[in-house]
């Protein structure tokens, strides 16, 4: 009974939080409810006994949403409401709703027709973390490594893109140096 109560509570909270994320025009509300929703999702992992995934969900998404906050701080005055321009809101809502429905159908159909079965049953006396590790490093080793390589590629490209002028410090340069730098940049663009 506790599980049912907890499930419905967190289901409601998660849906409510993500609805706020989508519907509000206030950047701070959107970000905060996104973070809250991500944390509430971890509750489902805990309810299902997947403690490791739940904790990882919390850690990963707090960091990720924290980075989003940093962007929010850079781009918006987060204490003010944004004026949004939705020219064709019906199409956007219709398409996204349809996509969400399709995802639900894709995941629910095998469950509804009871053709889903656990290929890797739980081992007795082995912790959750070990289970995840075993599956990750046997069956899913290649996808895991490919994902890691992809992250590495993203990181390196990020460093290359952001680090073009990292060796120059505007605070330690004189006015003339900055001026000449800006002029040479203009030439490069032209």
């Amino acid at each position, binding site marked *: 009974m506790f599980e049912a109560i907890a499930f419905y509570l967190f289901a409601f909270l998660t849906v409510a939080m993500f609805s706020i994320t989508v519907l509000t025009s*206030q950047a*701070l*509300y959107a970000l905060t409810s996104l973070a809250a929703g991500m944390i509430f999702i971890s509750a489902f992992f805990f309810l299902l006994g997947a*403690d490791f995934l739940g*904790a*990882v969900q*919390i850690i990963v998404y707090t960091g990720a949403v*924290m980075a989003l906050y940093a962007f*929010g701080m850079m781009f918006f005055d*987060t204490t003010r409401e944004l004026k949004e321009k939705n020219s064709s809101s019906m199409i956007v809502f219709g398409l996204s709703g349809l996509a969400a429905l399709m995802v639900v159908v894709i995941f629910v159909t095998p469950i509804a027709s009871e053709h889903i079965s656990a290929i890797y049953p739980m081992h007795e006396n082995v912790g959750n973390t070990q289970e995840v590790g075993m599956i990750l490093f046997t069956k899913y080793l290649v996808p895991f490594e490919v994902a890691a390589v992809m992250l590495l590629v993203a990181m390196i490209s990020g460093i290359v893109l952001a680090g073009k002028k990292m060796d120059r410090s505007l605070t330690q340069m004189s006015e003339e140096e900055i001026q000449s730098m800006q002029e040479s940049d203009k030439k490069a663009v032209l």
Partner: protein
Amino acid sequence: MDTAFIIETIIKIVVILLVFSALAGFGTYFERKVLAFMQRRLGPMHVGPYGLLQIAADGVKLFTKEDIVPAGVVGPIFKIAPVITAATAFMAAAAIPFLPEFTLFGYTVHPIVADINVGILYILGVMAIGLYGPLLGGMASNNKYSLISAARGAAVFISYEVVTGLSLLAPMMMVGSLSLIDFNNYQAGGIGEWIIWSQPVAFILFWIAAFAETGRTPFHLIANDHEIIDGFGTEYSGMRWGLFFIGEYANMFFISFVMAIIFLGGFGDGTVLGAFALLGKVAFFFFFFLWTRAAWPDVRPDQLMWLCWKVLMPIAVLNIVITGIVMMF
């Protein structure tokens, strides 16, 4: 799930909440006294004997002050931010074994609320959420100093969280578990088996990251009084500000417990002596937080990021690799 378990858990939660809320108050008293003695002052002296009732006076002041919500702030977020800090600090305590198990009136008590098998990850995750308090408070406050504080908070968080996680990986590999009780039992053999002897680098790294995590002096960036007023707390008053404070001090106590259990043997074999040893270690770590505040200067935010990304993270990765190689052969 029987009723006795639920009642026991609720009692434990209430006890932890009460004890650590009070300890947070005493923490402020200790901090003021220790800092004063180190600076040849006396600290609070007037309220009660040796100023002991200063905590009560502060509490009365915080509770009775007007709760001001300034114009222009984002109301709901502004109001919920201190609650996040305080609540997550106490949520993190759920996976910490505070004492060895003992028998009270024939009933064995485990002084840990939930011995989940991912204890450390859970603590790190919940403490990470705790930084949302300063972040949200700073962003919602409609104050430029608070905003700077929030920006620093985000930058600092992303930097130190990497070091915290990576530095703990090596001890986790040695113990083969994420539960703090398993960590404790791994080191139950006495001082010679403490993880600090086999993982001194990880210990130092985690200690440094703990300073960043709790925002104490060498890395006291997000509420640096002499640069950005009180940072995220500038617009807060009364008990909302007090919640930030309780959260900060409770966090200091909990991270001291985590350090003592992971690296310094925890409560050892679970005797009364072991329990007192654990409290002594925690007291030392807490004292060290105050000690550094008296002795060390603050670093700049860019210096902290430099330190975390360019120095500590490579060392942590090297430590993991070396530990793995040693464990393999």
